[in-house]
């Protein structure tokens, strides 16, 4: 399945891009997606600290993905 991941904050800087298309197995979860992303050494550490959202819902690592899902990868926040 193809998943589109938006990179935010420091993650976008580390990745050198603001979105990336990732291929995952059928029935993959957010945790699986995270493992695929973490194969890129430049973003590995940051990805492990990310939350993931679909639309305006933060989804747990156990959430099962569907082909074409668009997720946001949200590194630790620093507002205020």
């Amino acid at each position, binding site marked *: 399945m193809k998943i589109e991941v938006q990179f935010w904050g420091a993650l976008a800087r580390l990745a050198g891009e603001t979105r990336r298309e990732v291929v995952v197995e059928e029935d993959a979860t957010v945790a699986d997606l995270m493992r695929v992303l973490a194969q890129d050494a430049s973003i590995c550490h940051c990805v492990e600290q990310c939350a993931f*959202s679909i639309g305006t819902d933060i989804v747990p690592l156990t959430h099962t993905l569907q082909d074409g899902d668009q997720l*946001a990868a949200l590194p630790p*926040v620093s507002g205020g």
Partner: protein
Amino acid sequence: MGQDTPELEAARIQSQALSLDLLLADTERADCGALAIFCGTVRDHHEGKAVTGLEYTSHIPLAEKIVCDVEAETRQKFDVPVCRVQHRIGRLGIGETAIIAVVRSAHRAEAFAALRYAVDATKHRAPIWKEEFYPDGSSTFVEGCCIAPEGETYDA
């Protein structure tokens, strides 16, 4: 105002300058004797380094939802009729206001407690990222709080 019509209120996440006067006018209540306000402004230093400015980015739709959640939680938890938080995004200079929080209540004790909760919760949970700029032109993203449901806060 307040909890009755949140959908009609000004945006929580704004790229224009935040106006305390507007937010105060928008939340006026004759039954509230206590008004507690927090403004976070860009300061000229951080952890011993001179800072020339900041840039905030945000996943706006999610941040709007989370700040609304924080406001509603704060009103319920501290039984205060009014809690509003606004956060600015984009490039900010020294002294500019990054966040405003306003709580109104009948008495001051719950206003103080609610204000602190709302500011802390917004900082810890809203998907907003701060990049600091230094006199030599370099910049860095400030370390923050992990918001993953399974995650832990590694820097408050």
